[in-house]
């Protein structure tokens, strides 16, 4: 079961991953991805907006999809919203599985989706003002690779 949350508050990676393995001896692999706000091009802050009813539903659906694709022991997805500054953690994906291949693939699948398909909108705040970000084509390509085949294999790791 992969739990999903959208919240303004920070997350505690250690606490989230400890919960995935507590009391179990069938988990051989825990992969975590922590995304942080980069200070590229003098970014001052990033503000994320969600559509709560739709964002939560969409995250739950992709989490369920990951569970059908790979044999997972558990997982958690936490996406932050609100105003974040460079260096702030913005997204956490943690996946537990018996084997490393499934854990890596599921984590990367979830991240590719989150970066492109999650119903979230981002505004970038710089010295010159604040602007809403348009969807990025390269990220869409990264997400598409998961649609091209039914099996959980991957390719093209270069995507950002």
């Amino acid at each position, binding site marked *: 079961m992969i739990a999903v949350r959208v919240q303004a508050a920070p997350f505690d990676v250690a606490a989230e991953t400890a919960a995935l393995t507590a009391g179990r001896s069938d988990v051989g692999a825990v992969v975590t991805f922590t995304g942080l706000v980069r200070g590229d091009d003098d970014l001052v802050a990033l503000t994320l*907006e969600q559509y709560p009813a*739709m964002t939560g539903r969409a995250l739950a659906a992709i989490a369920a999809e990951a569970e059908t694709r790979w044999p997972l022991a558990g997982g958690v997805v936490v996406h932050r919203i609100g105003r974040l500054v460079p260096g702030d953690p913005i997204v956490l994906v943690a996946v537990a599985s018996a084997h490393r291949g499934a854990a890596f693939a599921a984590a990367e699948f979830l991240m590719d989706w989150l970066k492109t*398909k*999650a119903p*979230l*909108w981002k505004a970038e705040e710089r010295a010159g003002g604040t602007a809403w970000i*348009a969807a*990025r084509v390269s990220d869409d390509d990264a997400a598409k690779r998961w649609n091209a085949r039914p099996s959980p294999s991957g390719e093209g790791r270069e995507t950002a």
Partner: protein
Amino acid sequence: MIDLVYFAWVRERIGVDGEVLPLPDDVATVADLLNWLATRSPGHAAALADRGAVRVAVDQVLAGLDAPVRDGSEVAVFPPVTGG
């Protein structure tokens, strides 16, 4: 009545997070709804000037321009999602 919610620059241009409006009789589809909304204020018109730049969800599910809009629906209008 129809429950409208707006996000990102659609929200900023219209000037409100959302609004609850009576559904006109001649509004049957998403396209009808956008045409009607665009007449409501200069902000609405600015937000909806380029229909290709906005996306619509009916009851939290992405919907095309031909999708039906019914009394009691929640219709969200927003830019293409940018992800996390």
